[in-house]
């Protein structure tokens, strides 16, 4: 099913990249439990938990790749600084990646590719994000004055410039909540897509309810015991609401798409709130894992990125995975029916439902994706079986590694050869999907 091995650049044939395991800290609603924690604190703690779980103290890994979407300019070397704060060998190189919510799939995928090529034997793909410690900048006018102040030679000049500062100059420029090119937030964009696909409030609430209850059940069963290390007094995702009911979700007011009036369906209950957190996945070659008697949970087979023209093309901002999913399946000669677990990131319940509806839609397949026959339906019993972002929360860059580690464990438990598909939508009209196989 996979393409024939060819010569890898470091010699020999392409080799599988396997997932050994992962770790994350519980995800916390913004401005809550992690209000005082920085991206570096969270990423370091996550890596330390991974090191302790697999006994990697003083180990020199091929590389650590991580990143954040909301990143301070001082965090230009975030991943490397985090590595230096861990028990890993300081000779472990690291670099940052930033691709909005697809960051985490990109970091894991990049590490996997280097392993497959023989460039490295082991690596960590990770991601971290905080809304509570978001980078604030001065506005244009204030920045101008401060730079002038910096360039001033004499005390007299300095005083002159300082006198120009007004209270308004100290109002910080918050990070953009919306898309730069449309001015609409992701929620507003999704509200349009959700409406376009005629997805009901009931469908969305049901998906949200299942996410919370499935994830709560997974916690009760101890599923996350070896996937998560507590941080700052939190040992579970504090966004999760065990015992969520349709009645409870039905009471919530509309949050996005208010201009749609009666037809608006998106609430705070079926949308994922702003979240702080970090996650990491450990990947390696089979030999590296075997030499250290480390578990081999799954193979990270492949990943694929796609983008949509949401600015001019009337395409939904978060619909890029609908392009990437058929491409990656075709490449491996697989159909939706071959997949045992679907992990579709729940940025909004509407995103998951619209994605699934589009993949099954004849017109969309023909006119947008250029396919003769629709890709097909996704078996709902295979979808996000241990809950997803609606329950866990979504610290942008951390979502990919969270899913990779959880899915690897699920595939391993399901058995050798089982298949998992990950789909993560991202701001900027991008999307990342990945294929994994159980070992």
């Amino acid at each position, binding site marked *: 099913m996979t393409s024939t091995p060819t010569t890898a650049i470091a010699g020999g044939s392409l080799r599988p990249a396997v997932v050994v395991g992962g770790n994350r800290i519980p995800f916390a609603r913004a401005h809550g439990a992690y209000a005082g924690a920085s991206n570096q604190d969270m990423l370091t*703690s996550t890596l*330390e*938990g991974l*090191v*302790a*779980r*697999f*006994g990697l*103290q*003083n180990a020199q890994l091929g590389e650590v790749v991580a990143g954040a979407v909301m990143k301070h300019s001082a965090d230009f070397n975030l991943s490397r600084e985090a590595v230096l704060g861990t*028990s890993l060998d300081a000779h472990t190189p690291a670099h940052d990646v930033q691709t909005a919510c697809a960051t985490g799939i990109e970091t894991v995928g990049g590490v996997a590719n280097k392993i497959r090529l023989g460039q490295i034997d082991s690596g960590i793909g990770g991601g971290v994000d905080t809304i509570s410690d978001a980078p604030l900048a001065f506005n244009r006018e204030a920045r101008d004055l401060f730079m002038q102040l910096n360039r001033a030679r004499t005390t007299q000049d300095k005083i002159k410039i300082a006198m120009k500062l007004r209270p308004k100059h100290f109002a910080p420029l918050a990070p953009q909540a919306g898309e730069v090119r449309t001015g609409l937030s992701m929620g507003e964009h999704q509200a349009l897509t959700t409406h376009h696909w005629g997805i009901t409030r009931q469908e969305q609430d049901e998906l949200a309810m299942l996410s919370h209850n499935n994830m709560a059940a997974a916690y009760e069963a*101890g599923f*996350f*015991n*070896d996937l*998560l*290390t*507590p*941080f*700052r007094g939190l*040992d579970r995702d504090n966004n999760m609401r065990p015992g969520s009911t349709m009645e409870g979700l039905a009471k919530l007011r509309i949050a996005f798409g208010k201009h749609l009036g009666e037809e608006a369906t998106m609430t705070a209950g079926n949308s994922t709130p702003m979240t702080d957190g970090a996650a990491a996945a450990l990947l390696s070659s089979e030999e590296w894992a075997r030499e250290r*008697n*480390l*578990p081999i949970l799954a193979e990270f087979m492949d990943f694929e990125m796609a983008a949509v023209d949401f600015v001019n093309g009337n395409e939904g901002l978060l619909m890029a995975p609908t392009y990437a999913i058929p491409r990656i399946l075709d490449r491996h000669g697989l159909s939706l029916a071959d997949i045992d677990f679907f992990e579709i990131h729940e940025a909004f319940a509407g995103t998951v439902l619209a994605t699934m509806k589009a993949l099954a839609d004849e017109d969309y397949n023909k006119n947008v994706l250029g396919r003769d026959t629709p890709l097909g339906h996704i078996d709902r019993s295979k979808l996000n079986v241990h809950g997803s972002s609606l329950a866990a929360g979504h610290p942008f860059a951390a979502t990919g590694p969270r899913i990779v580690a959880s899915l690897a464990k699920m595939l391993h438990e399901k058995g050798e050869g089982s298949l998992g598909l990950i789909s993560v939508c991202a701001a900027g009209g991008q999307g990342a999907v990945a294929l994994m196989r159980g070992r």
Partner: protein
Amino acid sequence: MPHTDSYTRFVNKPLGKKLAKTVGLPQPVPLRRHNKGDRLISGPILVVGDSPAADAIAKQLWADDYDVRRDPGLKQPFAGIILALDDVSHPADLSDRVLEVGTALRGLQSNGRVITILRDPQDATAATDASLMAARHGIEGFTRSLAKEMRRGATTNGIVLAEGVEMSAPSAQAALRFLLSGRSAYVAGQFITVSSAAGSLPADWDQPLADKVIIVTGAARGIGEAISETLARDGATVIGVDMPSAGEALTAVMNRVNGIAVQLDITDHNAGNRLLALAEERFGRLDGIVHNAGITRDKLLANMDAGRWDSLIGVNISAPLRINDQLLAALGQGVVVENFRITSLSSTSGIAGNRGQTNYAVAKAGVIGMTQALAARLAPTEGSINAVAPGFIETAMTDAMPTATREVARRMNSLQQGGRPIDVAETIAFLHADAAAGINGTTLRVCGQSMVGK
């Protein structure tokens, strides 16, 4: 945590020392504790008696380059005194030797050691010989009383040799070294019973646990943290287990000791099997487990509810029982090594009872029962199971006690101070060594000869 409690610091300064002496207050001193590479003891060691045990000890210590003396008349400031009483058959035989020790005691150095060697008073073969039994029991009484006469951090303990076990037995030698060293700082007025000649001496006494893989439950903090550090210092690889909620602290400890962190609730019905599978996958072997995890749910029985009672029993005794069953089912089949070691945390509260701790005492006395019951099962493979009963140990738990209660508890022992987690850890590490195979089914107190007991 302070190195010593504030009172001990105070009475070890000139003013405090003078004041304590004048008004007759307790005068605890900082205890000598073991550091990697330390000699057992610095200063001359007096060996009293001319039994085969006395000769064997003197010869061995001499070979190890210690300053061994056999004449107490020199009035040396001895660092250690070993009193071999293994050959006495009547209480009247004791007189010469104990009085010899008496004259040597005045010069005993601070943090000195007195060790008696005796034959087991429990031996069935001697059970009907009244004068013999009187002598052996007499030595027990002597040792315990002398331990209470010790001053300035010095301790007295006994090594009990079972019938047919000689001083050359690995566990007898290991016990002697343990009691002479700083590893036994808070062990006072206790007996280490060597019941067989099983075991082997380590290639390197500084790495007695080299290549061993040992599980420590409750490893995230307190005594469990100290156990993990001490086992690792002595060469072991630690699999640290704690509640998922304690994972952050567990991570820090395991990364410090190069161990593996396992977030697992030990009351999970499959906990033992999961640990076994992990040990098999990661190391291909398992050499021992330390049942350290425990909780307190104190209440007078009149106010006790089922929640408090059941949760404590579940964690403190049901879980170790079940985990032992699961691990021992694989005994000698490859992963669980033949000379498997189990140690469990008991408590002086389990021995003496403690108001408001009926549930805790069930569990901690239960640990002693579990230990006795499994000893016979482990003995044929040179395995062993022992319990360690701490007294007042300075931890976050005892820090939270009311000041007056804590201060009384601290002074109510022969060393007039609380012990430290490291003291419990040292005893556990000693019991996990290959050399300790002959010590099986015992409960060793680490309590500074706390004034509570059966």
